[in-house]
């Protein structure tokens, strides 16, 4: 029956697509590792100041974030234009910072509870009064390791 199955000589041989799943999986894994889930959306303006003598904040699981800044446009009607503190997904008063830190600390595994860092993401236009109050709160709950999160850049750009 060779007569029927014989191929024409000019035909392209089919390219094996067996490796296609591998490639797709590679892409998938790449995105899985790179993507960071945003667990809270920002409700405050958050233009960080610049600094040059910075250290990287390693290990995200050991960091508690506190955001400070003026509420964004949509929240300004309710919360005004004075800088506010954002903890997770809601605005908070200064006196709630301590309990927040304690609650967050309790959520972490035992072995990490003593090595936590509090990252203060503060808008550059905020006043130090609020920051000082937060720092006082942090001291009261013994969360002494803080990181003033900044952009990398020349610190003198802040003064303009």
């Amino acid at each position, binding site marked *: 029956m060779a007569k029927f199955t014989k191929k024409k000589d000019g035909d392209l041989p089919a390219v094996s697509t067996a490796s296609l799943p591998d490639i797709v999986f590679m*892409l998938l894994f790449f995105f899985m590792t790179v993507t960071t889930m945003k667990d809270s959306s920002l409700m405050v303006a958050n233009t960080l100041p610049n600094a040059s003598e910075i*250290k990287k904040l390693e290990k995200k699981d050991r960091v508690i974030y506190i955001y400070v800044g003026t509420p964004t446009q949509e929240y300004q009607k309710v919360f005004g234009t004075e800088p506010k503190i954002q903890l997770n997904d809601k605005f908070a008063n200064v006196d709630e910072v301590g309990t927040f830190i304690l609650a967050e600390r309790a959520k972490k595994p035992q072995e990490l509870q003593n090595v936590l860092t509090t990252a203060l993401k503060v808008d550059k236009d905020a006043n130090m009064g609020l920051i000082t109050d937060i720092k006082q709160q942090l001291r009261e709950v013994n969360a002494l390791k803080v990181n*003033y999160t900044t952009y990398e850049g020349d*610190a003198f750009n802040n003064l303009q």
Partner: protein
Amino acid sequence: MPRRKGAPEVNAGSMADIAFLLLIFFLVTTTIETDAGLDRMLPPIEPPDTDVIIKQKNIFTVNINRNGQLLVEDNLMEIKDLREAATAFLENGADGTCSYCKGRKNPSSSDNPTKAIISLKNDRETKYSTYITVQNELVGAYNDLRNREAQRLFGRDFTKMEAEYLNPETPSSVRDELKDKVKRIQDMFPQKLSEAETTTN
């Protein structure tokens, strides 16, 4: 004659190329976000049991007022001069026990880098950006001195050594080796930056 073949096979040979193109595109454009900033330790809330008497000349006071002006050791100063002034204060070495200091040994300034304390005070109305700039300059003064000594002793920058030491991806054999060096430099210029409670006036 019945047709034996199913649907004709689609040529997917170029799919791999497309996938790679995408992969490379995202590899290039994605920046894996790592936060960075100034690391600071806050003072513990309970005061130390023993009162330590610190000589006034070992304290370098920096005051920031609400307009962002600096009062350094009771003199008005521009922020850009702060780093130099802090460096001079830290390595002054008035008591002569500090062999690596290159300061002027001014008797009215700090005795020794291990005794020198920088005290930073700010007003409640001070802008955060100004505060960060001042912090940055003070940390910069420490880093400059530490880098200088690390260059002299080990031939590389302290900040790079510390970053490598703190990086969790560094192999532990390298980390152990770096630990002693980092510790030694840190002991030469211990970072004593005190932040007193804010004044309200």
